[in-house]
């Protein structure tokens, strides 16, 4: 019981740092003067949310919640490639 209380308190104390860093990345998404700035900040927000999902699955003691983080990380890479392909060749497709 002492170990469980210690780990739960440790994770809850670390949570406000995530809210601050998510807000700062969101400020860059709103302010960015070009499209590539915004896509880079979305990239960073997504990988940050993956880490937050891992911590919360230890806190809630449910084991199947970690699988959603893997899909989130892979689809964020695909968005990068789409926007880069549009900007470079002015057309999307084969």
């Amino acid at each position, binding site marked *: 019981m*002492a*170990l*469980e209380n210690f*780990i739960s308190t*440790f994770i809850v104390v*670390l949570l406000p*740092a*995530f809210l*601050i*860093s*998510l807000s*700062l*990345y969101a*400020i*860059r998404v709103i302010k960015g003067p*070009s*499209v*590539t*700035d915004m*896509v*880079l*900040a979305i*990239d*960073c927000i997504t*990988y*940050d949310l*993956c*880490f937050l999902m*891992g*911590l919360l*699955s*230890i806190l809630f*003691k*449910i*084991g*199947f919640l*970690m*699988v959603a*983080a*893997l899909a989130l*990380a*892979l689809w*964020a*890479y695909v968005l*990068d*490639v789409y*926007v*880069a*392909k549009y*900007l*470079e060749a002015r057309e999307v497709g084969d």
Partner: protein
Amino acid sequence: MFIFPELNPLEEIALIIGIILTLIGVFCDIVGSIGMVRFPNFFVRLHAATVGTIGGAVYPLFGITLMSLALNYLGVMRYFIATGAFLTAIAIVLTAPVGSHALARAAHRSKTVPVEPKVCDFLKEDERLIEE
């Protein structure tokens, strides 16, 4: 045995390393997000994004893997969490640099971003030499 009396020595080493990696991850996360707001150009913000993704998401996911293998009160679920975190860390290491490199190449070649506080631009000189 040193701090937590109810674990093996092997599990306790894994728990302490996991906690240290998680604290490094939270620190790198805050530093990366401050850098994204304050840097002057897109090409300089790529450095801050590297700290934010690799230092802020890959290291702490390895830390969660080690931390979750040591906790006995989770039951069978600790193996699910450990495997998912390990595979997500490997996926981020393999795909995040490719994505940001493709984005930077498209931004330079299509002239979307002007290179403003500029000292020297070797890529533009090389492109002019290739065209001649």
